[in-house]
């Protein structure tokens, strides 16, 4: 069973980071939301395995207190 890789695996991490921020240039908040959502789906498909994706979702949610009755 594959597990989520949390060790460094991005080939040029600073280049990636800049590209990520750049990809939102001149977009308003709603547009950025849509870009992020599409990116999640595209990358999720590339990863493919449900167990790995569940692990990623779990880590993404970690440390964020849910607001009750929103």
């Amino acid at each position, binding site marked *: 069973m594959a597990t989520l890789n949390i060790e460094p695996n991005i080939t040029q991490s600073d280049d990636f980071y800049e590209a990520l921020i750049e990809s939102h240039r001149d977009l308003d908040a709603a547009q950025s939301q849509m870009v992020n*959502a599409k990116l999640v*789906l595209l990358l999720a498909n590339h990863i493919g395995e449900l167990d790995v994706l569940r692990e990623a979702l779990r880590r993404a949610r970690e440390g964020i207190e849910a607001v009750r009755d929103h």
Partner: protein
Amino acid sequence: MTPMSQDYQKLELNYVRPTEFGARTSSSTRHPVIIVGAGPVGLATAIDLAQQGVQVVVLDDDNKLSNGSRAICFAKRTLEIFDRLGCGDRMVEKGVSWNVGKVFFQDDHVYTFNLLAENGHSRPAFINLQQYYVEGFLYEHASRLPNLDLRWKNKVTAVTPKADGVELTIETPEGNYTIEGSYVVACDGARSPVRKALGLESKGRTFRDRFLIADVKMKADFPAERWFWFDPPFHRNQSVLLHMQPDNVWRIDFQLGWDADPEVEKRPENVIPRIKALLGHDAQFDFEWVSVYTFSCLRMEKFRHGRVLFAGDSAHGVSPFGARGANSGIQDADNLAWKLRLVLEGKAPDRLLDTYASEREYAADENILNSTRATDFITPKSEVSRLFRDAVLKLSKEHPFARKLVNSGRLSVPSTLHGSALNTPDHDTFSGFMLPGAPATDAPVSVSGEAAWFLNQTGEGFTALYFAGADAIDGATVAALNRLKYGAIAVKPIVVVPQGGATRLPHGLMSIEDREGWLAQRFDACPGTTYVIRPDQHVCARWRQFDPSHVEAAIARATCNA
């Protein structure tokens, strides 16, 4: 020339004074089974039991069949059950067969799905047929069965469980009377008076949305395909669903949103522009039915309460995207009838009926899960849910993976009853889908030299399916197969011979020829492979070699006699 269709929506059935009326006895007449509700599920249960020799009383509080726009999509598995109930041909002949669905987003066609991608099945993936036709055909068949007593304008007003039965108080135009059933099957719909009478509830969630459902009579060029639009130009930011039905009637669903006012939206002057936007401004059509619905997914915690069993909408409800309502109700009937019959005949213990509840509760959960997921995609319940839904749709134009995520309904398929106690777990290795608990799949065969379908050879009780090779079967196997007919619970042995194989066997042992080789392929069979199939055509056991003691054990297990 076919005779003019009966208008089943206008059919009025006769109230007949019940034989028990005014009888001067201190106790109620006892019946083996009383079914409450003569809708599709009640009628299917009644026909199934009556055909197996069980005497049935059916009570309906009305004297008419359904009218308007109710269930329309009847799935392949349901058609197979209708075949077993002697009504399949009529349904398919009148219905509109379809296999293909198309999904559109804005101006683009993004996705096509084919629900029956392979040949070699007797029935299509779906037929569309108005519920009043389904009820009409079932009713006409039921009225010809001698041990099926249909009582119209018999309204159950009280339900009193007793030690070994259930007493029902019934109101008729001529006053009240009581009868008792050893078992009562409540097929009395979403608002189930029987469920309420027992103080029970069906619980789940309601989707915050409203849908305008219109049945429109018109001549139109659309093909017999299920078409679903997200955010089309003619209905911005909402969904539309289009289905072809018989008699040039088209079913159109318009999503309206939670804030829509149902009374305002139903008015013809508000519906007509929506339909014209879809069809074009010169479109000619008439309304057969218009209504606004809100959908829910809900179920009873348990489908069995003592001697009362709940089937169909009384037990579980789903939103319609996926057509899992009436179809799962008919599958409930399919699961229940053979079990009730064995219990009433003393051939199985009462606890076999517990497995009706556990198997169909399991299936209901699967149907609710799939219907809920589809409805959440069509009616996202939060901002972020809507965001991802729209992201999927945007990606679907050019990304194949996103098309798979588009959910306008995961159409009804019968459950494989994983983990059911009635299954004999596999000890041998098999590939494919015919695992214990799975509904047996169809295949083209030949019987006595005539083209036929595999599933039609099963369903009258248990079946033992033995795949013979090209060589003659030895005498001991023939004798052992034949002896299965005479067990305490009779099993019908069927020998499958390969294409061109010899089909005459001693002792009148039935053989069928695997005409295209697809039966063996679909069952992953090689010579000696043996399957045991339940009366509801679900697989319950299989092995690589035939051993009569294994078959006997599997039957005992499948009937709670182990």
